[in-house]
């Protein structure tokens, strides 16, 4: 629509305007008395609660401590998803038989939302670390597998032919041809996985955890502390954004190193 690209300054100005409008609307709604405070606390109340929770504990821990235990579960779940999903995807991209065996099962399972695993996670693991890890895994696994698979499957056919002509065996084909060729796709998949994993995390903690941001939010809900619930939401948003920015930079760095355009 708009053909003239905006300068960095202009972009920042418009983004800032969006934030200001959003906060203004929020503040207006709450101070006007249209919406009761307990339904929607005003931004300044949430902000002060946020700052307060950085140092004083709620539901057994401060906000950074809750975030810490959330992040541990998250890291386990996502790493496990990558450690299984990427190799399996590559193998499926090379061995047709494995593809035929796994694909129907996988296609059925991947449409089950991570949160749908909560009953089983609770049953199998209680409030131990296994439950949330399993739910995060359920969210993060499909993009890992799909992107590794696609990356391996759509390697330039000439490169596969060149490698076969050079007498390359299966192991080396997967490790030295398919894997490096699939790296851009795998990294894109990891980014999606990281996002979905982080989203699933809170869902998991709402039900099966004894610490973490999600747990904190459930406890706050029980005592109708809406500002604390919102603090949890904001913390989740901020951490999610940080994860995404870091992974984007990693991806750009990788592309530059490959001599591709960023």
């Amino acid at each position, binding site marked *: 629509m708009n053909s003239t690209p905006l300068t960095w300054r202009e972009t920042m100005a418009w983004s800032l305007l969006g934030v200001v409008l959003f906060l203004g609307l929020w503040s207006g709604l709450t101070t006007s008395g249209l919406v009761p405070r307990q339904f929607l606390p005003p931004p300044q109340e949430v902000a002060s609660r946020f700052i307060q929770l950085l140092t004083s504990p709620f539901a057994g821990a401060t906000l950074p401590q809750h975030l810490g235990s959330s992040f541990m579960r998250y890291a386990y779940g996502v790493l496990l998803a990558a450690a299984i999903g990427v190799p399996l995807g590559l193998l499926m991209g090379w061995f047709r038989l494995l593809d035929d065996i796994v694909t129907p099962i996988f296609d059925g399972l991947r449409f089950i939302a991570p949160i749908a695993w909560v009953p089983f996670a609770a049953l199998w693991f209680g409030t131990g670390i296994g439950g949330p890890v399993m739910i995060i895994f359920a969210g993060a696994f499909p993009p890992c597998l799909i992107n590794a698979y696609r990356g391996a499957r759509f390697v*330039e056919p*000439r*490169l596969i*032919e*060149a*490698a*076969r*002509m*050079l*007498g*390359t*065996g299966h192991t*080396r084909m997967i490790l*030295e*041809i398919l894997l*490096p*060729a699939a*790296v851009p796709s795998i990294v894109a998949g990891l980014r999606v996985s990281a996002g979905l994993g982080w989203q699933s995390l809170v869902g998991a903690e709402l039900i099966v955890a004894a610490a973490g941001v999600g747990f904190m939010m459930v406890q706050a809900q029980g005592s109708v502390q809406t500002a604390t619930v919102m603090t949890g939401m904001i913390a989740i948003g901020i951490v999610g954004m940080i994860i995404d920015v870091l992974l984007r930079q990693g991806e750009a760095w990788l592309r530059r190193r*490959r*001599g591709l355009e960023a």
Partner: protein
Amino acid sequence: MGSILFQNVDKVFGPASSGVKALDNINLEIAEKEFVAIVGPSGCGKTTCLRMVAGFEAPSAGLISVSGKKVTEPGPDRAVVFQQFALFPWKTVRENIELGLRNKNLPAGERNTLVESALKLMNLETHADAFPHQLSGGMQQRVAIARAYVLDPDVLLMDEPFGALDAQTRVVMQEELVRLARVNPRTVLFITHAVEEAVYLADRVAIMTRRPGRIKEILDVRSIRQAENWDRFQKIEDVMDLESFVHLRTHIWKSLREEKGSQSI
């Protein structure tokens, strides 16, 4: 070691009954250390001929054998040089050349010696640690040729190897290939649509018809090259001025034009 044989080879793409017949009864025998070029109109199936010798595709009928053995799959005894180079972008020049030797499970010391001599042969010593994208097209194709040569293959299959290069680089590479053929003669199957290139490089030139591709005519260039002593010239343009060269080139041109004429182009 190193002969190539096409025996009554047909190739049909798609289902046998309703598919497109690409090649019709190809018979061709290439002797050890012989350089044969196949020329033909585009889409005539000349690249398919090479791909079947490489083992990337199987004939629909007939037999293809190399060194007396039926071709069933790709292998390092039949090294391919592709038009689009097909170098591994994440491997350095050295690693690209070394891969085939690693697949042969040669010890590191021996691999190094062979890679170094291949680098030297193709004047790539100073670029050994560069990545393909840092090199010009001509340099990339040198790497691809080194990668093929280092395997010491029975036959070398070159699929329009200079087709993606600019005119000047192309001439340099053609002269280079002649130099290589003298230092280290190989059985070569060379696919091209450039008539001069075929006449300059090959011992024999096979001319193909348009689809379905058949071999229409095979010209013996070697006897003329030897009789007229083309090898006294270093430069391709000097050879191209010779009457005997012009005569052969014109003959092939006319033959190919007939093919295009029947296609009403």
